[in-house]
């Protein structure tokens, strides 16, 4: 079969009449339901405003968390270390924020959440291995767990605030939105740790600080996946019921 023969079959499907009366009653019901008590709505803010909103949330909670716990980390970082960590952190947060803003509006572009996660998980360990030293594992877990917990304690309120912002839009894919919110929350935790944690051992920063982004991203994705399952479950039951 040639391409034009396949095209002909598809053209026939595109041009053939639908069964008599199909959709007429449904259309009347839709019009009857939607047009009664129709009220004007305020359009959602433009994508750049939403992106800035997510970034403002990231910056406020990272700095606020660092401030509350003590800015010990930034004091021991050299200028070069600060100049390489924070711009990259902002770039990763920008990717996650754009992804979150896109998730709020149908047909608003390709999702960037997986790229944001890959960027965070790929770039930060390499960067930390280049600018820090020390791979001793003495007290590795003992020093690491409090950092992971503190990072996640900042990530949780960020995630809740992200979910609130996301609900202002119309999310089609909660798994992706959850991942974007989770990565942004994790980056907020990571940002707070860079401001707060004075432990500059490469192995500690590479594993425990980056783990905040990974754990937070995966938890966000899992919550989103459950939300998608719940929505498709109710759709399927309403269809069959």
């Amino acid at each position, binding site marked *: *079969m*040639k*391409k034009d023969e*396949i*095209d002909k*079959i*598809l*053209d*026939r*499907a*595109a041009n*053939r009449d*639908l*069964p*008599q009366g*199909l*959709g007429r*009653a*449904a*259309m009347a*019901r*839709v*019009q009857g*339901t*939607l*047009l009664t008590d*129709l*009220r*004007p*709505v*305020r*359009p*959602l803010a*433009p994508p750049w405003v939403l992106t800035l909103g997510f970034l403002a949330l990231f910056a406020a909670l990272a700095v606020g968390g660092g401030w509350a716990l003590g800015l010990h980390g930034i004091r021991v970082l050299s200028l070069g270390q600060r100049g390489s960590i924070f711009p990259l952190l902002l770039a990763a947060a920008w990717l996650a924020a754009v992804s979150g803003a896109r998730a*709020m*509006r*149908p*047909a*608003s*572009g*390709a*999702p960037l959440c997986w790229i944001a996660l890959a960027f965070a998980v790929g770039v930060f360990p390499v960067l930390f291995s280049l600018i820090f030293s020390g791979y001793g594992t003495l007290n590795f877990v003992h020093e690491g767990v409090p950092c992971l917990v503190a990072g996640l304690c900042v990530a949780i309120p960020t995630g809740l605030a992200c979910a609130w912002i996301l609900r202002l*839009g*119309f999310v*089609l*894919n909660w798994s992706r939105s959850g991942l974007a919110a989770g990565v942004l929350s994790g980056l907020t935790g990571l940002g707070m740790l860079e401001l707060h944690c004075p432990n500059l051992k490469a192995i500690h920063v590479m594993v425990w600080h980056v783990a905040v982004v990974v754990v937070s991203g995966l938890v966000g994705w899992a919550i989103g996946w459950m939300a*998608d*399952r719940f*929505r*498709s*479950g*109710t*759709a*399927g*039951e309403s*269809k*069959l019921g």
Partner: protein
Amino acid sequence: MIATPSAPEAASSLSLESLMSGYQQADEQAAATLIERVSPLLLRYFWVHAYHRGYAEDLLQETWMRIHKARPTYRRGSPVLPWIFAIARHTGLDYYRGARRVEVREMQVDPLPEVAAKPVDFAAGDAEPEMAELDAVLAHLPASQREVVVMLKVSGMTVEEVARATASSAGSVKQKAHRAYRKLREAFAQGARSK
């Protein structure tokens, strides 16, 4: 004296984008015209997918309910069809996944009772051979390629519109369409050889 067009006539001459903006501003005539103009496209989109065919009307209604909820997220001036089809696509996916899950959970112990009326009469008229032919073509394709082919060829959308509706890039849509055609040609060539 120049006759001024009536409200329905004026609305029917507007673009889908203007009608959607009117819908956002609670213009009933614009909303009614939008529903009349877009519903056949949505219905055809659901109708050509074999697993949605019996529920095309339910899906149409559910899609409009979601469009109604989502209407603040439409950006004035941007293309309407990708925005609407993105919602329709997810409505279909949710129904499909939900129904599959319910079917897997349910154990059939007795024969199902006769239903009063079938959702759609497939055997009516001469429609079946054409749909069977289409189903045979689409059955060779994975879901993502099938979706792209249907949107491009049956719904008549452009590559850019399909890319926006499916949250992918134009390059990815072109690649999926190309692979779909290659797969179909191979499948039909194999079928011809085996005969």
